[in-house]
């Protein structure tokens, strides 16, 4: 990295600099350890000291889990149609291009086909960075198409979830995406095609209450927040502090709602192993 290149980036865009604060060093939010970017990447974006799992996007998951260059993306340019002409403090039709510009994504999920250890797979991976990973029509439709592809081609399905829930700006249409994805999963299940659901931090609301919880095998990343209602709402409802570890991946494992909690560095191996059993 040269001195000149850096200064050029700084001139390029003021906002971009704000949104991507990655210098060469990152501080672990959990233990405060200062980690070099290279080292963090080498360590699958987990803390070298305390194992905290940093939030990463679909691009990183695809790179970590799939065989190099095996991923072929579909419907990469599908975007929201703003069916309700929704306005809160901002217009939804302005929010969408802002999010697209900020994240270089078109919505909160990416789907395509690829291989893990040469075994074929249909993959959908969510991006929390795109409006909180919220599920509107586009997420529902793309997950739906991934399921349909898995169903038609009898190829196992992997969905990597990261979401705050259904997207408010599309109203009841967002809610119906829960029914849409679950209905298609019913058909996939009847056809005997395997579905692995990977839950990452955070997976809450309508995504949890539909496809995320319907995997034949459900894997969670360590420490991931997983639940139906958010912790703030629950705390408000019951008027008490929540116990430590509540709604974390390990808590769900304890209560029987996920099959395993797997460190990010072992995910690829675990998925490959599972595919030898439920890969059809």
């Amino acid at each position, binding site marked *: 990295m040269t001195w000149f290149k850096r200064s050029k980036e700084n001139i390029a865009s003021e906002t971009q600099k704000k949104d991507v604060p990655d210098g060469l060093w990152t501080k672990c939010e959990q233990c405060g350890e200062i980690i070099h970017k290279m080292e963090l990447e080498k360590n699958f974006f987990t803390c070298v000291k305390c194992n905290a799992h940093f939030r990463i996007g679909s691009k990183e998951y695809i790179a970590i889990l799939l065989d190099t260059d095996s991923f072929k993306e579909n*419907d990469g340019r*599908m*975007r*929201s*149609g*703003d*069916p*309700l002409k*929704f*306005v*809160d*403090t901002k217009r939804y039709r302005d929010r969408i291009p802002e999010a697209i510009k900020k994240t270089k994504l*078109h919505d909160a999920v990416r789907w395509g086909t690829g291989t893990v250890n040469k075994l074929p797979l249909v993959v959908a991976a969510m991006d929390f960075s795109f409006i909180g990973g919220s599920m*509107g*029509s*586009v997420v*529902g*439709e793309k997950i*739906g198409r991934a399921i349909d592809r898995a169903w038609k081609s009898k190829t196992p399905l992997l969905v990597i979830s990261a979401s705050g829930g*259904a*997207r*408010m*700006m599309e*109203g*009841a*249409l*967002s*809610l*119906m*995406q*829960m*029914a*849409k994805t*679950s*209905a*298609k*999963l*019913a*058909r996939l299940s009847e056809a005997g095609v395997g579905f692995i659901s990977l839950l990452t931090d955070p997976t809450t*609301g*309508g995504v*949890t*209450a*539909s*496809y*995320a*919880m*319907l995997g034949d095998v459900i894997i969670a990343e360590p420490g991931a927040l997983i*639940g*139906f*209602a958010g912790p703030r*709402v*629950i705390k408000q*409802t019951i008027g*008490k502090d*929540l116990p430590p570890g*509540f*709604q974390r991946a390990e808590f769900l494992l304890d*209560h*029987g709602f996920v099959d395993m909690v797997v460190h990010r560095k072992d995910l690829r191996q675990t998925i490959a192993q599972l595919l030898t059993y439920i890969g059809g």
Partner: protein
Amino acid sequence: MAKTVLEFEKPILELEQKMEEMRRYADNPDIALEIAKIEKRVGQLQLTIYAGLTRWQKVQLARHPDRPYTLDYIGMITKDFVELHGDRYYRDDKAIVGGLATIEDRKVMLIGHQKGRDTKSNVYRNFGMPNPEGYRKALRLMKLAEKFKLPVVTLLDTPGAYPGLEAEERGQAEAIARNLMEMSRLRVPIVVAIIGEGASGGALGIGVGDRILMMENSWYSVISPESCSSILWRSWDYKEQAAEALQLTAPDLKKQGIIDEIMPEPLGGAHRNPEQAARVLKDTIVQELKQLAKIKPEKLLERRIEKFSAMGVWVG
């Protein structure tokens, strides 16, 4: 006259009270004439007020404390109701009721959210907010219906699935998700009717079906206007705007292609004339059941999946 009066109904109430007072002197022909005039005005006022309700006002009607609930409708539209209890895993959730019922000679499995009418019954019913065991009870009854080839009728009326600590421990999300998947492949007809509040996953958890009906003054959305206001406006004060933005009324949902039919309510809401509301509900359900009975299970399931697959709006 309803016991509870909403803010926008007050002009009507005032006139009605005036009329009542005048009736005491009704033997005076002048006053009798005056009463007739006021009566006409009340009628006109009702028409204008109820025809021009905002979305937030409709939400208030959907939540009206005198509005008929599931058990009220069961009493009015079915006979020989046999309530069945429990999910067989944990406990009986009082926020969801269900059982075998006969609607005009048609035997069905009827399941619905149940609210309470006063503090005591509301605590008993948990304000109509189910825990996971409620959804699991509903699923058990639906499986029973499938086994005995009975169509399923569900009535939706909930402010949401309960956001509690134990609900999370027992898998609220899993319970709802499971129902969505199982209802998608249940081999008997399912008719869904939204009779009051249809709040998010808590409503949808018993809301997947072949025909979706909605009462005129009910609402159905991904979130309540209040919660939407608190998240997007970071204040509880924008519920009216949130209700408008969410487009959560029956005509809105018809336009969005989410519901099939709107069931008209008596002027001023179902609570003004529960029998009339029940009659419309019953007739509509029977109509739908008749149609659905003709369709073979394979076709029914195919259409059900296609129905929900078609929902959504996107570009590219």
